[in-house]
């Protein structure tokens, strides 16, 4: 399906009349269903702002964001919450798991909020935990498990409702390299096996190399785009590093 998500001329300004910061400056792109898109850029390039607008947490100053036929830029506050509930899943750098709930309960909560039936909830929960390899830590509290496990739990929570789009903000940011790799493989699996559409923001080239397409942001604008195609991941990583070298930044973050 084409034009699954369309971002049209989105702008986001901060500040007041005398001092305007253009965090996102006329950005347009589309995401197709089942795509794994990465957004890269240096700190302050506007990637998190863009993600926030896509995730309805922040509002656009100008432009439109279409999810199919729905323009979220035009929606009201209450409808946005409903929209989020039905269409989006989140994975964040700091996991954002509820510390008072066990791993399993964190996943269950996401479904009870959508008022699903008990059997349905438990079935889906068991499935996704098995799929992401966290079934044996189901009764542990977040503080008792590793960062990678926490992040996989967050993925499970994001995925369990079968959202239209999963938004990931620096998901490997707080993980060691081994966990990061496992997580990225999980993402690829989610993308390939479950046809989940993923938009991941990162400034880490290694993480980005798992994506099928990468948008490079600089000073609020898209200045480059890379498509992986059928290339090896290693080759794709080199391409990414080349682009980064060109912009003179973020090489130090390459692992």
């Amino acid at each position, binding site marked *: 399906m084409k034009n699954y998500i369309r971002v049209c001329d989105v702008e986001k300004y901060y500040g007041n009349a005398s001092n305007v910061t253009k965090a996102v400056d006329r950005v347009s792109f589309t995401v197709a269903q089942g795509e794994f898109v990465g957004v890269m850029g240096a700190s302050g390039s506007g990637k998190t702002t863009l993600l926030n607008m896509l*995730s309805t*947490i922040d509002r656009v100053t100008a432009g439109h964001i279409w999810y199919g036929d729905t323009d979220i830029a035009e929606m009201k*506050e*209450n409808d*946005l*919450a*409903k929209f*989020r*509930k*039905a269409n*989006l899943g*989140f994975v964040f750098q700091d996991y*954002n*798991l*509820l*510390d*008072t*709930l066990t791993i399993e*309960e964190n996943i*269950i*909560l*996401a479904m*009870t*909020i*959508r*008022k*699903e*039936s*008990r059997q349905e*909830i*438990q079935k889906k929960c068991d499935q996704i935990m098995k799929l992401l390899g966290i079934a044996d830590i189901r*009764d542990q*509290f977040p*503080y008792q498990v590793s960062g990678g496990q926490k992040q996989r739990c967050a993925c499970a*929570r994001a995925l369990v409702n079968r959202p239209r789009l999963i938004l990931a903000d620096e998901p490997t940011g707080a993980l060691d390299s081994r966990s990061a790799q496992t997580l990225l493989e999980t993402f690829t699996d989610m993308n390939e096996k479950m046809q989940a559409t993923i938009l991941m923001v990162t400034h880490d080239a290694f993480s980005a190399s798992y994506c099928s397409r990468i948008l490079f942001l600089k000073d609020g604008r898209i200045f480059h785009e890379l498509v992986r195609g059928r290339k090896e991941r290693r080759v794709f990583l080199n391409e990414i590093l080349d682009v980064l070298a060109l912009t003179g930044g973020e090489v130090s973050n390459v692992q």
Partner: protein
Amino acid sequence: MFNKLAFRNMRRSARDYLVYFLTMTFVTALMFAFNSLIFADDIEEMFDAAGIMAVLVGLAAFFIVLIVAWLINYMIRFMLEKRSREFGICLLAGMEKKEIARLYIRENALLGTCAFLAGMALGVLLKQVIMAILYSMLQIKYDIHMELNRFCVLMTAGCYAGCYVLALFRSGRKFRKMNIRDLMEAQKKNEEIKESHEQLKKWLFWVSLLFLAVFAVFIFFIGIQDAGQALFFLTGIVLVIYLFYIGLSSWLICYVQKRGEAVYHGQNLFLLRQFSSKLKTMSFTMGTLTALFTLAFLGCTVALMFSDYQNKLLETKFPFDVQIYSGDVKDDFADEIAVLEKETRVLDAFPYHIYADVPLEDQKETEDLRRERASQVNVWLSTHLKTFGDMYRNKDGSPNLKRIEKDSADGAFYCRYDTYMRLSDYNHLRAMLGYKEVLLGEREYLIHVKDRILLEVETMNEDIVIEGDEGELEFAGYYSEPFSQDGHNGGDYVIVVPDSSASSLTPYYAELAVDIEGEAPAGLGRKLDELAEPEDFEESGKSGRSESGEETGKSGQSESGEETGKSGQSETGEETEESGQSERTGGMSEEEEENEDMAFFGHKIMEGNVCCGSDTIVVMSVTNMVRDNLIPEMKYMLSALIFPCFYIGLVFLCVALTVLSVHQLSDSAKYRFRYLVLGKLGMNKQEIGIVILKQLVCYYLCPVILAVVIGGSVSVFMSGKFIFYTGIQSAVFQYFGLTFLLFFGIYALYFITTYVSFRRNVETDL
């Protein structure tokens, strides 16, 4: 520089912990207002009982200082934890621990001083309110005057400083143990929920509930029999208060682990987990809060009980304007009437006698029978009234005559002999009180009893035999209007016989009932007391003098008071009466001691035939009863109980609510991300608002519900006893119901403030 920093930090603390600051202000205001009760000069001059008020307010102040110190200590530790990162930075920047400690203490002292000054300003206003209430109770006109009594300010400042000294006592240690890394990390640390033995611990919940049920059954149906049981239940209650929360939290955890049905509905899972983890980490604090709430409930209930008594029963206790007793049957009351006529306009002064059926020596053959007849009603009442229980019965159920005789000689409840009155006297007195005249046949008698015991004596007439000159009299009925039966017109009862049948009766003591125009002037009772012979004073006033000091000593009067207002009850609610008869006896002897100790109310004792009847808790039985003097005085004495009880109740309530509120608010800041996550999971602002509301309701209600169950059953029990012993006509639940309303007024204020700030804290980022 440090001063400036301290000042700035203090301002920030006051803003962050506004509830705490306001509570401290309010507590200061209460302290000042209630302390001023001790230092009200005009009242001190007016009432000899002013000492009681001072003692009880002082006692209340003592407990309040302890509790407020706990609050301050709690808050200091709490703020320290919240600001640990800041202190870590200070340490990193090179400040010494000692300097930081000093800075922190200076800040707190500044905050305290500000709250104190604000509280004093509010206190001056609050004092006016409290004084106005007290004065209107005492029927004295109160002119608003904004004076600051030096001693009162000093005492308030002393109490306040005492709280701080107690609170800061050990906080220095905290600073010595500080470590930069721990400080920097403390804030980041989330709650670590350690679940272990939950299955086992959850039984604590059921055991607690079971204990409460047993307690309720005992208190309402069986009664607590002895000191051992009382101690058992008291210990049990304290344990339950603390263990209940551990049990409840484990029970909730087990429920969630078992995946109970409710877990799968809406945000229940979040709420259940949130609540159980909070309970788990704070079970001790929650227990303490419950204890505070319970005490607050009990304090207010006792206050309301006595204030109800004041409003309803006091007026009926003194039906005559003036009533004077004399143990000398030949007394013609000429001196007293002279005084009365000098001081006021007498409308009617009626001297009369109370008679007894005393056995005569020459009738030897019937002596035993006559002796039995002479005190038959006393014996019947001693053995049948619920008040006495089995106190005057032998083990086989027969009356314990020896004990009755001994106690009547000591003047415990009844006189040595039954009390009689002539019909003509009775009707004259009825006319004075505006009651309808009563007609009796030649061979009839009636009994006038206190309304309180009317239902209990229904069958008494079948068991007693009243003989007139010409044989047995027939019973013609009971009357129960207020009739001054706390020792003047008999104690509890007086038997009224036709004049013709009274010739064989012996005059027992003399009485004078007086109707005067308008209100009696203040101090009339004292003037009447002063008529007593100096030697009487030497004989019986020995204990009174030492207590009452110069004033009463000068007037050379014999004195004593009957006041059995048990101050102990206000504190614990677990009083002698609960513990059944054996305890009750102990209680009585205590009261007697108390009577001697309390002989400083400046009234003349009734010598000879003291029979104040079976009333307890509040009894005033004195020789010279001047209604318009006594009522304000009784009210003052009752106020001495009512005010401190309210004082304690209010302060405890505010302290407990502050802790609840501050805790939730700081959590709302620390755990804001939880609500942000809920938002990202797709809940809108309104839904999150509802989650917060539910969470706060659970959190606020939990300690209150337990306190209501415990405090409620004790209060209802206490009120039942109070109603039973005083004969006041009120519903058992009334006092507790009113307390509950008052409580929830204040409660709602705190709750709304917390809820609004909580949402504001959370929603800034939503």
